[in-house]
C-alpha cells in the first residue's frame, strides 16, 4: 500500500513537470517566411548624342573630347566588372569615298580617372566594383582622335558595354 502511494505521488510529480513544460512553450508562437535571391544585374547606358561632327581643324590635330558622353547606371547585388569593346575592328564606312578607320581612334575613361582606354573588338575591363552598393552611376568621357590620315565621310561604330558578376 505504501509502495503504491509512493508510486502515485511520484507519477503526479512527473506529470506536473511535463504539464508545466508544455505551457511554457505555448506562450510564444511564430510564423515563417523565406527570401530567395539570385545574382541580379542591370545596366542602363544613356548617350548624350548619337552623332559627332568633326568640323574644326583642332578636332583632327588634337582629337575631340566629350566629357560625360555616356551615363552608365550600374545595378548589381554582387561584385561586378564592366567591360567595353567595339562591335567591329573598323568603323563602318557609310560614304562612297571613305577609308577604313580603325576602332582604336576611340577611347573612353571613367570621368574620375585620368587615362583614356583605347577600344578595340577585344573586350577590356573598364570599371570594376569598388564598393558594395547595388546602385552606382558613372560618367564616361569619350575621346576620338582621327588625325589627318583619313578622308572625310560618314562613319559609324557601336560600342558595347557588358556587365558581369566578378
Amino acid at each position: 500500500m505504501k509502495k503504491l502511494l509512493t508510486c502515485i505521488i511520484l507519477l503526479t510529480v512527473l506529470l506536473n513537470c511535463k504539464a508545466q513544460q508544455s505551457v511554457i512553450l505555448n506562450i510564444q508562437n511564430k510564423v515563417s517566411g523565406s527570401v530567395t535571391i539570385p545574382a541580379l544585374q542591370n545596366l542602363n547606358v544613356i548617350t548624350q548624342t548619337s552623332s559627332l561632327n568633326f568640323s574644326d581643324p583642332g578636332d583632327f590635330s588634337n582629337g575631340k573630347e566629350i566629357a560625360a558622353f555616356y551615363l552608365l547606371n550600374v545595378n548589381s547585388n554582387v561584385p561586378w566588372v564592366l567591360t567595353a569593346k567595339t562591335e567591329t575592328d573598323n568603323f563602318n564606312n557609310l560614304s562612297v569615298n571613305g577609308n577604313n578607320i580603325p576602332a582604336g581612334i576611340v577611347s573612353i575613361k571613367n570621368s574620375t580617372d585620368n587615362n583614356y582606354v583605347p577600344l578595340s573588338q577585344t573586350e577590356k575591363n573598364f570599371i570594376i566594383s569598388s564598393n558594395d552598393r547595388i546602385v552606382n552611376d558613372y560618367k564616361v568621357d569619350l575621346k576620338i582622335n582621327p588625325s589627318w590620315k583619313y578622308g572625310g565621310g560618314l562613319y559609324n561604330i557601336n560600342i558595347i558595354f557588358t556587365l558581369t558578376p566578378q
Partner: protein
Amino acid sequence: MKYLFIIFFILFGILNSSKTLAQPSSSNLISVIPHNSMHVFYTDINEMLADKIFTRAVEVKFAPDVPVADLYASIALDNYSNTSAPTRISLKLNAQSASNLNAASTNEILLNKVPIKILSLPKLPGDEKYVLFFDVIQHGCDHFTAPGDYNFSIIFSQSPQ
C-alpha cells in the same frame, strides 16, 4: 525512513503543483495565424531596392490574463551566416479588434534577434481576445547580397508588465 520518503514526495508534489498554477493559463496563449505567404523570390534588381509589403500577413490572437501584458516580437534567421544577408524585416499593425490601442501602435517596428516590445495590451473584459493583423515588411536592400535562400521566423511572445 519510508515515511520520511513519502512525506518528501508529497511536499515535492505540492510545491510543483503550486508552481504550475503560477504558469500562464491557456487563456493567455498567443495564437499566430499566417494569412499571406511570406516568400520572396526576386527576379529583378529593382525589386530588391524596394520594400516588399505582405499586407495583413499575420493574425495574432491574444487575451492577457494580467492587468497589462506586453507583446514582443523577434526574428530568427536561418542560413544567414553571410553578413550581407537581407535581414531588415519590420512589423506594422494594420488592423485590430480593440479600440483601446493608441495611434503609436501602428508605427513600423524593425525586428531584431532580441525580442522588442511591439504593444502593451490591457486585459480585456470576459473572454474577449485581441485580434491583431500585422503587415510584414521585407525592406529593400541597397548593398551587395550573397545569392541564396534565406529563411526567417517571426516569433511572438508575451510578458506581464
